[in-house]
C-alpha cells in the first residue's frame, strides 16, 4: 500500500470511527432533553439551552476527529 493510499484511508477511518461516539452521545442528550420536556413542558426553554450546551461539548469530539482527517488530507503531504 503506497503512503498516499494509506494517508487517504487513514483520513476516512479517522472521521468514520471518530463520529460514532459523538453521534451516540448527541442522541442520548436529545433523548434526555425530550423526556424532560415531556415531563415538564414549562421548563422547555431552559432545557433547550442546556441541551445545546451539552451537544456542543459532544460535537467538539467529532470536530477533533474531523480536524485530524483534514490534516491527513491537506497538510500531511510529505509523509
Amino acid at each position, binding site marked *: 500500500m503506497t503512503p498516499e493510499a494509506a494517508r487517504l484511508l487513514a483520513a476516512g477511518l479517522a472521521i468514520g470511527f471518530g463520529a460514532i461516539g459523538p453521534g451516540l452521545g448527541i442522541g442520548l442528550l436529545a433523548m434526555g432533553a425530550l423526556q424532560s420536556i415531556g415531563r415538564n413542558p414549562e421548563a422547555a426553554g*431552559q432545557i433547550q*439551552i442546556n441541551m*445545546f*450546551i451539552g451537544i*456542543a461539548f459532544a460535537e467538539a469530539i467529532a*470536530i477533533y476527529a*474531523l*480536524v485530524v482527517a*483534514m490534516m491527513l488530507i*491537506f497538510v500531511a503531504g510529505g509523509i
Partner: protein
Amino acid sequence: MGPKTKKYGIGCLLSALFLCSLCVIGALPLCNPGFRPNLRFQLPAIQIAPEKLAVIPIPGFPLPITNSLVAALLASILLITFSFFATRKMELIPRGVQNFAEMAVDAVYGLVVSVAGEKRAPKFFPWVATIFIFVLVSNYLGLIPGLAAMGIKEIHHGETVIVPFLRSPSTDLNMTVGLALVSVLATQYYGIRALGTLRYTSKFFNFRGLFTLPALLAGEEKLETMDLIMELFRRAIIDPFVGLLELISEVAKIISFSFRLFGNIFAGEVVLLVIGFLLPYLGTPAFLGLELFVGLIQAFIFAVLTLAFMTMATLIHE
C-alpha cells in the same frame, strides 16, 4: 379568484419557471449533439492555513496580510459602523437601528443574567456579548454567495486555483486560538479577582487537606480504621490529583474552544464547496441553510461556554 388562489398562483408560477430553466439547461446536450460544456473551471483553494494576499515588508519580520485578516477587519468595521449609527441621536423611545440594537442587547443581557445571576451579569456581559456578535458576523462572512469566486488566480501545486479575497475569520486558527486564549485568561482573571489569589490557586494545587493530616492521624476526628484510610487517601493523594486535572482541563478548554469553532466553520466551507459541485442547484440552498444554523449555534456556544466558565470560576464553593 379568491385570495388563497392568488397566493398559490405566484408560488406555482415561480416553481414552474425554475423547473423550466432546469429543463432547458439539461436539454442542451441532447438538442445540440456537438455541445460539450467547458469543464475547465478553477476551484477556490482549500487549505487549512489562510492564504496570503500580500506581505508587508517590515525588515526582519515580514507581516503577511491574509484574506481572513481582511475579512476580520471588515467585520470589525461593519460592527463599529453599526454601533455608531445605532447610538447617534439616542432617544428614550427607540426607533429604527437603535430599536434593533436594543433588542439584541436586551436578548443577550437576559441570557447572561439567567446564567450568571444579577450581581455578576454587568461584569461578564461585555465579554460575552462581544464574543457572540463578533463570532456571529465572522461566521456569516464566509457564507455570502459568490465571494468564494472573487479572488486572485494563483498556481498551487501545479494547479490553477483561485485565492478568494475574503475568507471567514473563524476558519483561521489564529483568530480562534486568540479568542479562546482571551476567553480562558479572562476567566482566570475574574476568578482571582473574586476569590483572591490564594483561594483561587488552591483550586488547582489543592494541598489544604495535607494540613489536616496530623489531626486526622492523631485520632481527633472519630473515624473507623477503614474510613480513616480512605480519608487519608482522599486528602493526601486524590484531592491534589483532581486539582492537577482541573489545571490540565483549563488548558484543554483553550484547545476545545478554538478547534470547535474552527472545525465547524471550516468543515462547513468545504462541504458547501463540495456540494456546489456535486449537486449544484438543489443541494446548495439546503446546505447554506444548515451553515446559517451552525454559524449561529457556534457563536452562541462560544459565548455561553465562556459565560458558564466565568460563572463557575467566581463561585464560592462549600
